C-alpha cells in the first residue's frame, strides 16, 4: 500500500510519530573509526557471560515450568529474590502483590501511563531528562511541565508554585517523573533533603512520584541516599528498577514496586501488551542471582566503570577548554557538559568529522533548549579510546571558539 493509503489509517499518535532524533544522529556514529560517547550502553567486556551461561541450566532443571506461559505478575522465585535483595534500599521486604516484573524499565513507563494518563494530562519531568521516557509519554499524549535541575537534582523548591500555577490553569497533573540517582543525562543525584521535600510536596498535593532508578546500584564513590520509596508511608511512590545496568540489558528484565491497586492495574494492562515478560529470560536471571553471581559480580562492574569514569574525567581535564562546565558523576553512565556560547548541534557535526560522537543536549529537553549542552557516556568506549575521543572533542570545541 502507498504511504498515503497508510496515512489515512493511522491514529493521531501514529501519524504524528517520528523516529527519535537521537536514533537518527546515532546512525552517523556507526562510521568506521568513530569513537562513540553517544549511546548509553554498558561495556560488553564486563558482561558475566560464563556465569549467565551456567544459569541457563535452569532450562534443564525446570524446563517444563519456564517454557510454559508465565503469570503476568512475573516469575515468582525472581520476585521473592528481588524483594529480599532490594529490602535494604526499599526500607522493607516488599510484598509480592506490590511487585510486577516488566520487559525492562521502559515498559514500566508505558504501563504506568496506560493506567494514569488521559490525552492532555500533565506529567512533571526534570529538565533535562531521559528522552526514552518522553517518547513513551508523548505516545500517551502527555503534556509536560518541566522543573529545572542543578547539582543536587530537581529544584524541588520550585515545585509548589509550578503545581499551583498549572492547577490554576486547569491542568490535571498525574505524576512526577524523576530519575533520582546519577540522572540520565545530567549525572546529578537528588540530595536526601530534596528527596524528603519532594515526598512532602507529593503528599500535600496528592501527586504521586515515579522514582526511576536504573543506575542506583552503580555508585563509584560517596554514600547512597535513601530511596524516596523507603521514606514513604503513604503509598505515594512507584519505584522502577532494572537488570540492564547490573547484569545485562539483553535480558530485558526490569521490575516495578507500587501500591497494590496500581500494580494490579498495570498487570491488567500488561496482559494485553505482552502477556508476561519472557519467562526464559526471567528464569535465567533468577538462576544467575540465586547462584550468588549478582552479588559476586557487582563489585567488578563498579570497579570497571569507576576506572572508566576516572579515565574520562582525567582526559576531559586535559583536553576540554577551561570554560567547559561539568561535574564528575558519583555513579551511573554519563558526563553532562555545558559549553557556554557554543551550539552543540553544530559541534556534533564537527566532532563527528573528527571521529568522536556524543548526544546533543537538546534531545533531553521536552520543550527544546539546552543548546549549549551535551552528554557523553563513559561506560562503552574502550580505555584507549577515551583519551583519544576526548582529545578530538577538545579540538572540535576549540574550532568553534571554545577557550
Amino acid at each position, binding site marked *: 500500500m502507498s504511504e498515503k493509503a497508510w496515512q489515512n489509517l493511522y491514529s493521531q499518535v501514529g501519524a504524528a510519530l517520528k523516529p527519535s532524533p537521537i536514533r537518527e544522529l546515532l546512525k552517523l556514529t556507526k562510521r568506521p573509526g568513530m569513537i562513540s560517547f553517544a549511546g548509553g550502553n554498558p561495556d560488553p567486556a564486563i558482561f558475566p557471560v560464563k556465569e549467565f551461561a551456567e544459569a541457563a541450566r535452569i532450562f534443564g532443571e525446570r524446563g517444563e515450568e519456564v517454557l510454559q506461559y508465565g503469570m503476568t505478575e512475573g516469575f515468582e522465585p525472581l520476585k521473592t529474590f528481588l524483594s529480599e535483595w532490594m529490602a535494604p534500599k526499599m526500607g522493607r521486604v516488599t510484598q509480592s502483590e506490590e511487585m510486577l516484573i516488566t520487559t525492562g524499565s521502559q515498559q514500566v513507563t508505558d504501563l504506568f501511563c496506560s493506567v494514569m494518563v488521559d490525552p492532555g494530562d500533565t506529567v512533571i519531568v526534570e529538565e533535562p531528562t531521559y528522552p526514552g521516557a518522553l517518547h513513551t509519554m508523548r505516545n500517551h499524549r502527555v503534556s509536560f511541565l518541566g522543573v529545572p535541575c542543578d547539582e543536587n537534582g530537581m529544584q524541588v523548591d520550585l515545585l509548589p508554585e509550578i503545581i499551583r500555577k498549572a492547577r490554576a490553569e486547569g491542568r490535571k497533573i498525574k505524576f512526577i517523573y524523576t530519575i533520582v540517582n546519577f540522572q540520565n543525562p545530567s549525572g546529578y543525584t537528588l540530595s536526601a533533603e530534596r528527596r524528603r521535600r519532594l515526598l512532602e510536596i507529593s503528599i500535600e498535593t496528592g501527586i504521586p512520584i515515579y522514582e526511576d532508578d536504573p543506575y542506583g546500584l552503580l555508585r563509584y564513590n560517596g554514600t547512597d541516599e535513601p530511596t524516596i520509596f523507603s521514606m514513604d508511608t503513604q503509598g505515594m511512590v512507584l519505584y522502577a528498577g532494572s537488570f540492564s545496568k547490573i547484569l545485562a540489558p*539483553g535480558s530485558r528484565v526490569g521490575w516495578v514496586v507500587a501500591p497494590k491497586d496500581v500494580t494490579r492495574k498495570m498487570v491488567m494492562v500488561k496482559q494485553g*501488551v505482552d502477556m508476561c*515478560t519472557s519467562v526464559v529470560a526471567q528464569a535465567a536471571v533468577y538462576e544467575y542471582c540465586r547462584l550468588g553471581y549478582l552479588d559476586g559480580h557487582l563489585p567488578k562492574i563498579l570497579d570497571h566503570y569507576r576506572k572508566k569514569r576516572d579515565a574520562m574525567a582525567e582526559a576531559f581535564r586535559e583536553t576540554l577548554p577551561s570554560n567547559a562546565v561539568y561535574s564528575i558523576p558519583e555513579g551511573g553512565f554519563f558526563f553532562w557538559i555545558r559549553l557556554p556560547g557554543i551550539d552543540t548541534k553544530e559541534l556534533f557535526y564537527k566532532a563527528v568529522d573528527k571521529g568522536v560522537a556524543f548526544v546533543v543536549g537538546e534531545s533531553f529537553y521536552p520543550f527544546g533548549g539546552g543548546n549549549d549542552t551535551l552528554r557523553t557516556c563513559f561506560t562503552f568506549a574502550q580505555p584507549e579510546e577515551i583519551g583519544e575521543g576526548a582529545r578530538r572533542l577538545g579540538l572540535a570545541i576549540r574550532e568553534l571558539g571554545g577557550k
Partner: protein
Amino acid sequence: MSSFWEPLYGRASRSLKPSPIREMLHLTRRPGIISFAGGMPDPAAFPVEAFREAANLILEEQGRDILQYGTTEGYPPLKSFLSDWTAPRMGRNLAEDELLITAGSTQVVDLLSWATIDPGDAIVCEEATFLGSTGTMRNHGATFITVPCDAEGMRVDLLPSLLEEAKKRGQAVKYIYTIPNFHNPLGCTLSLERRHLLVRIAQDWAIPILEDDPYGYIRYDGEHLPTLFSLDSRGIVIYAGSFSKILAPGTRVGWTAGDREIIRKMAVFKQAVDVCTSVVAQAQVYKYCELGYLDAFLPKIIAHYRKKRDDFETAMRRFLPLEEVSWVKPQGGYFYWLETPRVLARELFDRAIEKQVAFVLGEPFFPNGGGERAFRVCFTFASPEQTDEGMKRLGDAIRDSLEA
C-alpha cells in the same frame, strides 16, 4: 492509600477488566479439577533438553552480543532464519525491513493498535474471536464490527455490506482481524475461496488485514491452505506468527511481517514500549532453530496433539449427549467449540465446576455479545485419562442442566 490514586487513574483504566481466562485459570488450578479451560501447550511436548543445549551454546558463542541492547527490529540472525523458514507459507522470502520480532503475537496487536486506533475507531473481526486480542484493542479504544462465521470461517460475503454501513455511519474501520487457521475459539479454518475474496475486499477498500496465525503450523490432517499474506501483492496483509505453539510460549518470541511502511511505524512504537524483545530469548530461539530442532520437533508436536485431538473426539462421542451438543472437528490448533442450543453455558459452568471439570464460557469471546449457549474446550493440555474422566463429568453436567 488508594484514595490518593483513585481520582488520578485514566479513564481507560477505570474500565480495565482482568482477562476472564487468566482469572479463571486461578479457579481451575484447584486440586482435583480437570481443566479444558486454558489454551496452553502440553509441557510434556516441550523440547526441554534441546532448548537447554541451544541456550548454553549461544551464550558461549555470542554471549557478549546477546547480553547487550539489541536493535528494536529484532535479532538479525533470527530474522534471516525466519525469512527462509516461513518462505514456503509466505509465498516468498521476506526482506529485513518487512519483518519485526515481537514479544509474542500479543504485542503485534498492541503495536498495530498503537499505530492505527483512535478511540471509537472500528476493527472488523469474527463474531467470536480471541479475547486477548479484543482486550488489547479495547484498551486502545476500539469498537468492533463482527462478522458471522460458519464451518468455513468468516462469512466474508457479508463483509462489503458491513463496511458500507460503517461508512454511512461515518465510522473509520482501521483493520480486519482474522485468525484464518484453526480459529480460537471456533476451531474453524477459512476456506481457500474465502481467502481470495477477503484479500480482494481488503484491497478494494484499502483496509489492512491482520492475519493472526499462531496455530498455522499445527495441522493434523488435510492440506495447508495458502496464507492471506501470500495471496496479496499490494501490502494489505500484516501477518503475525509466534513460537508459542511450535516451540514454547515461555520464550515470548513472535514476529510480524508486512508492508515496510507499517513495520517501520510499529518498530517506532516498540522503541517506546520495551526497546527490544529479550535478546537472550531471541538468540536462544534462533540457536534452537539453527541446530535443526525446530524442524525435527515439529512433527513430534503435531503427532502428539493429533493423538490428543483424536482421544478428545472419541471421549466426546462416548460421554456427551450427542443430540444436545454439536461441534466441528478442528483440523489443527488447540480447540473444540461446543454448542448446546438448550443449555446456557453459564449455568453449565457452575455445574461443571461442582463436578470438577472446567472450560471457558463462550460469551467473553463475543465482543458485541452472543455465545450464551456455547463454550470452548482445549484438548492439548489434559492427559488421556483426564480427558475421559473430564468428558464423563461434562456429559453428566449437561444432562443435569437439561433436567433442571
